[in-house]
């Protein structure tokens, strides 16, 4: 399984968390948001993770633009984090690109990875 870290902030922290909760089954690479979104578009990677201050702009904008909003979801934005069940159902419903506020990375990545690895 390949996961790309695209959007803007704390990319190394995101990559570390993804590796940690990926249980050795996930290959992570850090890219620019455009390159990362293109990797999803061309099926070179299965999932896109991105973080920024708003969870939607720098984190996810290029993925929304290049991969399409139907594949993208903001797991957290200022003032709101998805409940665990909502996050799991987003993965089950086939979302591929996830944006969130950088401070929420350690809350949402374990849930996202847990559900992704069930697939």
């Amino acid at each position, binding site marked *: 399984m390949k996961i790309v870290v695209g959007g803007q902030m704390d990319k190394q922290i995101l990559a570390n968390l993804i590796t940690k909760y990926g249980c050795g089954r996930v290959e992570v690479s850090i890219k620019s948001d*455009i390159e990362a979104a293109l990797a999803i578009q061309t099926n070179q990677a299965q999932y896109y993770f991105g973080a920024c201050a708003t969870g939607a702009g720098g984190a996810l904008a290029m993925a929304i633009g290049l991969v399409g909003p139907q594949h993208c979801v903001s797991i957290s934005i200022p*003032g709101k*984090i998805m*409940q665990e069940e909502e996050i799991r159902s987003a993965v089950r419903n086939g979302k591929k690109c996830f944006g969130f506020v950088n401070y929420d990375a350690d809350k949402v990545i374990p849930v996202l990875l847990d559900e992704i690895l069930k697939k």
Partner: protein
Amino acid sequence: MLFSINALTILVMAALGGICAYLANQNIAVFHDGLRPMFPAYFSKAMDRKTLFATSFALSFGLVIGFGLPTSIAGKIIIVHTIMLATDIIGTMFSENGNSKWYATAVGALFGIVLLFGMQAIIDALKILPIDFTGSLGTVGSLIILAFSVFPAIAVAYQAGIVSGGTVLVLIMLVKQITMLYGKFVVNGVTIALNSDGMALLVGIVAMIVVAARQKRTEDGNAATAFAVFSKNIDRIKKNMLILALSGGIVALATTLLLIAEGPASLTLTAEGQYAQAAIVALGRTLGFIPLVMTTAIVSGVYSPAGTKLIHVPAILFINMGVMGMAGSFVTGALIMVVEVLLLGFIAQGMDKFPGMKDLGDNTRTAMSKVLDLALLVGGMLAANAIAPSIGYIWVIGLYFLNQASKKPLSTMAIGPIGAITMGILVNILHLIGLFPIVVK
């Protein structure tokens, strides 16, 4: 607030709210970078207006209330997010057809005016409390003035590692220290003192650009090919160049009139009257936002009412220059907007040529954001401590961690301003029940 309320400022706020709501309503420009890429789905009818509005509301409402308002109250100038994220919501709320666009424009204009009077009313209301803490609110931004010049070092560290970042950090500190000691010249009997923070910032930004320009391409660039399919979107934005120019002019004029500021850092510096330094900071932020605003514009066909934020830079320098300054600000703002729109095609083609510049943008935004998080948090602590030396630090530190543990956390950047304002309100409540006597100094 720092602006005055008169016929001109009322008119400018109405024009600003009106045109931004109109641009959002007509799908020409929205402020939230995350909303822009939603538009292709809306144009292709895969997304309806209601969903577009719901998305806009979800993305922006919390930021207006949780970030825009407290930052504006604490800083005494309206941070641009407060009005432009709201007009994103207002514009997408109404149908784009028929008379609805004029309703959107009217509501946007009304919002601008309400904001103008509302902000002043809030400050006036706070001033009549038994303990007037509005004077201490300025402390929230005190670290921005003294320490914001650190951000280029952090951006360089993200881009080229901690050795380069550390080198720039030392360079910035040296420049500040040396300018402070030796930056005074007497020319023809007039003493000219260089601003040490401004100089440090300038040197830092130059170092940051040099590092970015030296970066070599690390992966096969196929961004330009990917962007070639979006040439229609660029044409769409170019078609709306005139109204975007008008918007750029109004945004610039509002900045010059001290009505709005583009970010928390330049807001604080502008409020302190350090216009040159505020302009340098705004320029740094523009470097950060050029890739984000332009790439989202190219993939969506929708621009931003404030463009890449470059319009704010000359607008800040035109403050306090009278009528000519206002006219100059308006014209420069409009011209910059035109140039930006004309450059979109060039940017799309050149995407792979300067990979360092794209990274520079991302790293600059990240570094600024991180520095602001910390500077406003500590500033908020200092302000709360100035208001209530007994419990100020406890309150803001507590608030910070409560926010982190919350299921609905606000922007970290907003905790400092919110902490200071709520501390002020709390001491007034404590005073009413006899727990916070006024000390006569």
